[in-house]
């Protein structure tokens, strides 16, 4: 599949944004319930950053459309389409986000901010899962039907969201007391994700397409080879679906994604432990590294997926 930059920017940026909103919502709900000292200013910064990133990501996705001004119509078919459901939930997320923002701004105490936070976390989770399901629900692309696709997508959103939240907290809060522990948690999550990705890559390398060219032309069991293409140049189908990535490039990119994914949080831990540089240095490294890893991984996710229509070519 052709890796469209607009879609890659959309899934990674809005993934990080919704991931941050998810962690933020959870922390507001849990801390509220335990009546710990509130951190309204920092939370507001995190809320603003997460919402801005999510909205930027969604705007990037409009660049993929042929008629972006009609995009509002994409909210109508939530009964059948995962893309529609994702649009509805993404916009619905903005409601508790704005409500929570208003409550934090006014310094409102009591259960309300917690409820808004919990709702925000739930809707952010729903949005990320719906986005992953857009790809996982397509039968002609077997690589995306793998059971690890949705969990890995979710983990990337959680990872980059957590790294970003950590960065916002490091920038806004004077104390970086749990800095190293939080970074260690991030590194552990990144390692789990790296293992999951390698399992997925191993599986898609081993699994051939579910049909042969003979099946595709209605002659199952016969050996069919291409004699002449229907057109001498490219067309939409070949440009969009028949993207070929050389195996050595794919290997290099997989190693790069893993290095960024596993390496950046570990380096950040070392940096935090050494205590050199500003207090936001290590979290910034962790966020930049994991976000870059998610770009590379998403690019590979598209580039290495084979569509069944390529059998005809």
């Amino acid at each position: 599949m052709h890796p469209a930059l607009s879609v890659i920017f959309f899934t990674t940026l809005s993934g990080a944004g919704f991931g941050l909103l998810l962690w933020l919502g959870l922390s507001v709900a849990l801390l509220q319930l335990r009546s710990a000292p509130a951190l309204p200013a920092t939370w507001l910064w995190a809320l603003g950053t997460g919402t801005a990133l999510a909205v930027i990501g969604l705007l990037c996705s409009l660049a993929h459309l042929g008629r972006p001004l009609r995009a509002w119509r994409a909210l109508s078919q939530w009964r059948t389409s995962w893309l529609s459901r994702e649009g509805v939930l993404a916009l619905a997320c903005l409601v508790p986000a704005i409500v929570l923002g208003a409550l934090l701004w006014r310094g409102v105490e009591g259960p309300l901010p917690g409820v808004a936070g919990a709702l925000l976390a739930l809707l952010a989770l729903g949005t990320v899962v719906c986005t992953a399901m857009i790809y996982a629900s397509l039968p002609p692309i077997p690589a995306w039907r793998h059971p690890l696709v949705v969990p890995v997508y979710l983990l990337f959103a959680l990872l980059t969201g957590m790294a970003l939240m950590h960065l916002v907290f490091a920038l806004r809060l004077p104390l970086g007391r749990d800095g190293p522990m939080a970074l260690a948690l991030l590194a552990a999550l990144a390692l789990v994700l790296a293992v999951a990705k390698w399992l997925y890559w191993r599986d898609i390398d081993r699994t051939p397409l579910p049909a042969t060219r003979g099946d595709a032309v209605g002659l199952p069991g016969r050996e069919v080879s291409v004699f002449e293409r229907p057109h001498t140049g490219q067309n939409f189908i070949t440009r969009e679906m028949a993207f070929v990535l050389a195996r050595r490039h794919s290997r290099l990119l997989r190693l790069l994604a893993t290095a960024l994914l596993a390496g950046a949080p570990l380096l950040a831990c070392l940096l935090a432990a050494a205590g050199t540089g500003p207090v936001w240095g290590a979290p910034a490294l962790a966020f930049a590294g994991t976000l870059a890893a998610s770009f590379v991984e998403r690019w590979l996710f598209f580039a290495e997926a084979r569509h069944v229509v390529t059998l005809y070519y």
Partner: protein
Amino acid sequence: MTALPPPSKKKLGLVIDLDTCVGCHACATSCKEWNSGGIAGPLPDEQPYGREPSGVWFNRVHSYEVAPARTPSGPQPAMTLHFPRSCLHCETPACVTVCPTGASYKRAEDGIVLVDEDKCIGCKLCSWACPYGAREYSAVEGVMKKCTLCVDRLYNENLDPAERVPACVQACPTRARHFGDLGDPDSEVSKLVAGRGGVALMPELGYRPVNRYLPPRPRRAGGDAEGDDGAEPATREKPSLSRWLGRMLRR
């Protein structure tokens, strides 16, 4: 509405005979010509004589080589296969259900799958969902385009009743394309499918295509078929008259 309508009795579709298709592309060009107007037109045709021609065609004719094989109907020789590929107007098409705007829909009365170009946002998800590559994106208009089964010919009062068939069916010089109601077991096309063993393409994907492809008829084994005993035709006994004639003429 992208929810699929309840299954209709009438299932209009095409039957394509792979035995008689010679790959002449008449179906492809007549489709392109008809859809330079009509409900799906104009089809984009950018830089047709330029460096990088690009455009949308609803019907694309592939050509393949099929290797010789042993089949239940005897050893089959190598052959070329011409394969017109277009929308199969499936019964449970994912291209309809994934559409977020409701632009992609299946008609309840006759099962034709269409694109409402006023609602389409060009997100291309329907083309990803189609395993047969039936949908192409028009960069000029920013919407998706697909075979309409010439719905603007089928019910067109301005055409002769005999001409109210898809343009590709009318244009085919070898009668390799047939149109009819595949939901009616007594229709001509249904009888053709039953008689020739017509198949659906990749049914295991669950789209339940309506169009059927008639496989090439089993060939009488030629000289290069597997299992041939290698006997040269030239060494077989010729009739004595022609042998005498050969001797006479050689003098």
